[in-house]
């Protein structure tokens, strides 16, 4: 059965290997130069405050030309890989056999349906996880300099300076790609088992997987662990996107925490000395001359207004990675079990 | 030498009877002699696309008549004869028949007429024998 699974999977495996190879070549060609730029930047061996500036300089240096494109291409590939796997490896796995009637050939050989499905699921599923993780690892290896710099950089307005928690970065690095691949794959297989037609199964898989991938970072991930809370002085932020509203209203967009570089900001805003949210300027700071001018934030500060932030520190990174991956793997196992039950109990 | 069977699907005669008939015919004509092996069952069915039980039934019937004997694992072999001594007369008789046929053709008879004439004469002769 192992041979048959491989033989049926061969074309897809070759395509995936080729894609991986092309990508690897691209990285191999651009990687060494990136590494040498990093070595020359002086970030390794820097101390304290100077690190932030050195890091920002390095990031602006590599922020143009080929590197951002390769970086984003890699991220995109890793994020899309599970979906592609779910659609092209998962959905047809069983659906194709029903469509072509070959299940009548397979199930009358001297092998049980359970073993048949188990080998197909295990081998193809493991391949799915392996290739997605491989993609992720080689991209992470290539982007290591950028990642390290991003963790140190004080300047957050930077296309490559993504926190490891940022949407695409969290999905593309660590071990979450394994979970996504496992889930997308088994989702595809289940759709195929239920619908028994390849193309509709592909469509359903894409729809559901996309929905889950949007829902997870927006609604679930933020609640996986209780966040830390802290306040910081307005002056500690080198840049703070501000929205000025009529009648003294204002709102701050807090997307980083100076004392916790790389932390995942869940929410942040202005609070008064008592810790209550503030959305209106104190009367004294409301005049047109002050609002929006450099004197405005000191004015707010003098009235006890600070920024309160709830966040996940970088130390939580692996805890979050493991938890999220565990959720996806658990989902994958549930779906796989369902497939076994469905195929062995109701063969019609 | 191994004989080859053929089946006439339209004759209304059961297949196994046709096989028996063909073996007997072959024995009479000396095409099959004592010690010769009948075609293997699998070869017969592979040629004719008929049920093996049909062939087995024919062979069993022939064995019952004492004409053949089955040797398990080896095959079915001819043990008896039909016609026996008359076989020697076949040669000259065949030549006489060929001459007669040539004459009939020269006289202008077609196949159907020849066959009708022969069968008619054969039958009346048989009746005379009985009577």
């Amino acid at each position, binding site marked *: 059965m192992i041979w048959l699974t491989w033989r049926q999977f061969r074309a897809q495996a070759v395509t995936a290997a080729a894609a991986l190879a092309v990508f690897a070549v691209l990285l191999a060609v651009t990687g060494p130069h990136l590494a040498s730029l990093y070595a020359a930047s002086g970030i390794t061996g820097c101390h304290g405050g100077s690190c932030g500036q050195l890091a920002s300089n390095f990031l602006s240096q590599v922020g143009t030309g080929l590197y951002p494109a390769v970086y984003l291409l890699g991220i995109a590939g890793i994020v899309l890989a599970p979906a592609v796997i779910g659609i092209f490896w998962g959905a047809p796995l069983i659906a194709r056999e029903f469509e072509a009637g070959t299940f009548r050939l397979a199930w*009358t050989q*001297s092998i*049980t349906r359970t073993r048949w499905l188990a080998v197909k699921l295990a081998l193809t599923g493991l391949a799915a996880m392996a290739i997605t993780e491989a993609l992720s690892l080689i991209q992470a290896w290539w982007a290591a300099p950028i990642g390290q710099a991003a963790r140190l950089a004080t300047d957050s307005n930077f296309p490559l300076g993504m926190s490891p928690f940022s949407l695409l970065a969290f999905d593309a690095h660590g071990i979450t790609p394994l979970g996504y691949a496992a889930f997308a794959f088994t989702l595809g297989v289940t759709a195929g088992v239920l619908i028994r037609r390849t193309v509709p199964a592909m469509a359903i898989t894409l729809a559901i997987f996309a929905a889950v991938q949007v829902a997870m970072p927006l609604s679930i991930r933020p609640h996986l662990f209780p966040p830390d809370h802290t306040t910081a002085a307005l002056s500690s932020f080198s840049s703070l996107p501000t929205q000025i509203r009529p009648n003294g209203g204002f709102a701050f967009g807090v997307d980083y925490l100076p004392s916790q570089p790389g932390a995942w900001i869940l929410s942040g805003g202005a609070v008064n000395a008592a810790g209550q949210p503030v959305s209106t300027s104190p009367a004294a700071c409301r005049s047109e001359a002050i609002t929006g001018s450099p004197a405005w934030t000191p004015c707010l500060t003098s009235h006890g207004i600070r920024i309160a932030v709830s966040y996940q520190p970088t130390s939580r990174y692996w805890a979050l990675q493991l938890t999220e991956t565990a959720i996806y793997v658990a989902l994958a196992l549930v779906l796989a079990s369902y497939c076994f039950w469905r195929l062995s109990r109701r063969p019609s | 030498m191994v004989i080859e069977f053929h089946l006439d699907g339209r004759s209304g005669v059961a297949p196994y009877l046709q096989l028996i008939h063909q073996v007997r015919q072959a024995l009479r004509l000396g095409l099959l002699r004592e010690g010769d092996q009948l075609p293997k069952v699998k070869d017969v*069915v592979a040629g004719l*696309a008929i*049920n093996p*039980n049909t062939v087995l039934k024919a062979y069993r019937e022939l064995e019952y008549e004492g004409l053949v004997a089955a040797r398990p694992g080896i095959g079915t072999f001819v043990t008896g004869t039909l016609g026996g001594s008359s076989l020697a007369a076949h040669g000259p008789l065949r030549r006489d028949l060929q001459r007669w046929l040539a004459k009939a053709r020269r006289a202008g008879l077609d196949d159907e007429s020849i066959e009708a004439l022969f069968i008619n004469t054969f039958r009346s002769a048989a009746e005379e024998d009985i009577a």
Partner: protein
Amino acid sequence: MTAVLETRGLGKRYRRLWALSDCTLSIPAGHVVGLVGPNGAGKTTLLNLAAGLLLPTTGTAEVLGGPPPANPAQLARLGFLAQDAPVYAGLSVADHLRLGADLNPRWDEELARHRIERLDLDLGQKAGKLSGGQRAQLALTLAIAKRPELLLLDEPVASLDPLARREFLQDLMEAVAEQDLSVVLSSHLIADLERVCDYLIVLVGSRVRVAGPVEELLATHHLLSGPRRDPATLPAGQQVISASHTDVQTTLLVRTSDPVLDPAWTVSEVGLEDLVLAYMSQAAGPGRRNHHLGVQK
């Protein structure tokens, strides 16, 4: 002799429709069984139930002494050839042989290779590119080389041209003779099966109409023709299968184990095709194409 296939009240329903109902059969080993019936009669359903590809709605089926195969040992004893001979289009002929060897413990590689050679199939040819007859032969090779005790074939020759059909049946019979195989093959044409079957099952409208050894069926079914008569007046032992009437004459196909002694009848033998047709028309019901006795005499 043990039964290779035994069913009791076997039935399969899809939503509202019964594809097979109340099927009770006991098929002995060592036969080539013809399963005949019009399309939609339930032949495919019965074969799929026997092969374990479907679960029954009612009743039971016993195959080779056990339930329809579910474990590898039982699966090895049963060969199945589904309708239209499904094969993996992207795999070559050699790949299919490898499949058979890989998944069947009793696989006879030599037999498989020998057959493929004799069939003149190109080992490297993708199965999707084979002709219908070649695909059927490949599928038959896979089923035979597995060395089963029972072979189930669902309309194996339905879409084959006459030459391919003949060759398929020749090869099948050779395998039966060599391996002492029991076979059940279905068709909607009795002509396909006449030469090879020695046991017959007629399935019409999801029900078994008649089943038994061909010899016995031919011996117990007779065509009676004589002066116009009501079939109901026949003695109890004579079961009327089909009847047709003209103004003065009645022709009946009856089933009986006793000899027909009534001198009014001319008794003649029935061919297999007429026998099957009679049961099909019986199942179709009285409204169909029969000449009625009419309102009065």
